[in-house]
């Protein structure tokens, strides 16, 4: 029988730094909840809002797979590998921090906030050579189906990372129901509702709710209202 965990949106950690408001599904920085450290290899899911013209100054990372999914606005990225890029809604960015990188990220729009998901996964291989990639997602493609945006395979759809993880974005019309089949035995899926209302394994989920499900090969997702959501399939043991 499937096991599940529910994280309602209003139970997330909140950090308000003025220029940054961050809603944290798992313990991060000043938010420490021993009951919410990770979901398998998924360690960080921050729902961030960055004020116009502000951002994260240069800071280091190592040994972590870092995925950014902008939801509104854009962020300017600069890193120690020499990459300078702007990432905006409809794109996905990935960094394998490996042996260590420095980067900065700023909201280049002086007036409007940038909203994005910051997702960190433990890597399946430590001390790799750092790498960076970003791709444009085809927004129209995700209607009423699962669109893979991340995998472990360089020649598969979406970006790739050093972990046996698969991410899918979806936009379901009301009453649409689909079964998600897991790619790998031993993996679990963390469902994060971007907007709307869905039902997973009998549990109703609203905007920004998170729901982890594991010990199952598949599960059904039904849209109670028009909904957009992200599925993060990750190893539960790593």
């Amino acid at each position, binding site marked *: 029988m499937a096991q599940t965990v529910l994280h309602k949106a209003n139970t997330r950690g909140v950090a308000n730094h003025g220029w940054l408001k961050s809603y944290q599904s798992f*313990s*991060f*920085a*000043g938010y*420490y909840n*021993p009951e919410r*450290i990770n979901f398998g290899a998924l*360690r*960080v899911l*921050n729902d961030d809002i960055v004020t116009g013209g502000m951002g994260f100054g240069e*800071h*280091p*990372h*190592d*040994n*972590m797979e870092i995925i950014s999914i902008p939801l509104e606005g854009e962020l300017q990225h600069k890193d120690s590998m020499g990459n300078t890029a702007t990432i905006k809604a409809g794109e996905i960015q990935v960094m394998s*921090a*490996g*042996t*260590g*990188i*420095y980067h900065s990220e700023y909201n280049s729009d002086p007036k409007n906030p940038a909203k994005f998901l910051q997702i*960190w996964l*433990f*890597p399946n291989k*430590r*001390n790799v050579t750092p790498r960076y990639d970003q791709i444009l997602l085809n927004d129209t493609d995700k209607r009423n189906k699962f669109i893979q945006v991340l995998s472990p395979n360089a020649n598969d759809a979406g970006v790739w990372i050093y972990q046996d993880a698969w991410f899918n974005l979806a936009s379901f019309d009301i009453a649409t129901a689909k079964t998600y089949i897991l790619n790998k035995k031993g993996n679990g899926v963390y469902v994060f509702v971007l907007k709307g209302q869905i039902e997973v394994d009998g549990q109703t989920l609203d905007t920004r709710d998170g729901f982890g499900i594991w010990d199952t090969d598949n599960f059904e997702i039904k849209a109670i209202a028009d909904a957009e959501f992200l599925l993060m399939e990750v190893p539960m043991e790593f």
Partner: protein
Amino acid sequence: MQIIEILIVGTNKPIMETIARLIDKDGVWKATISLSFDDACEVCLRKDFKLALIGAGLTDEQESQLKAYFNKLKPSLPIVKHYGGGSGLLFAEIHQALS
């Protein structure tokens, strides 16, 4: 106030310095940096560490050897792989290891 000594091991000096700065900011925790396997083995003899964090840069073999060395020298010493480079995960890692 008892200071909790924390050993951090990794080969990327700027990242180690960032981690040390964040640890020292806590007030109760005090970081000691080791940039190599040999130095980590040596410094462990001189200080009573309550935790060892292993960051990026050591080979898998060095990590295993270091763990074996620490386990023999001080079996109660928690040894934790540090991920993220001194960013948002550091405090949870330390709290978990010390609790």
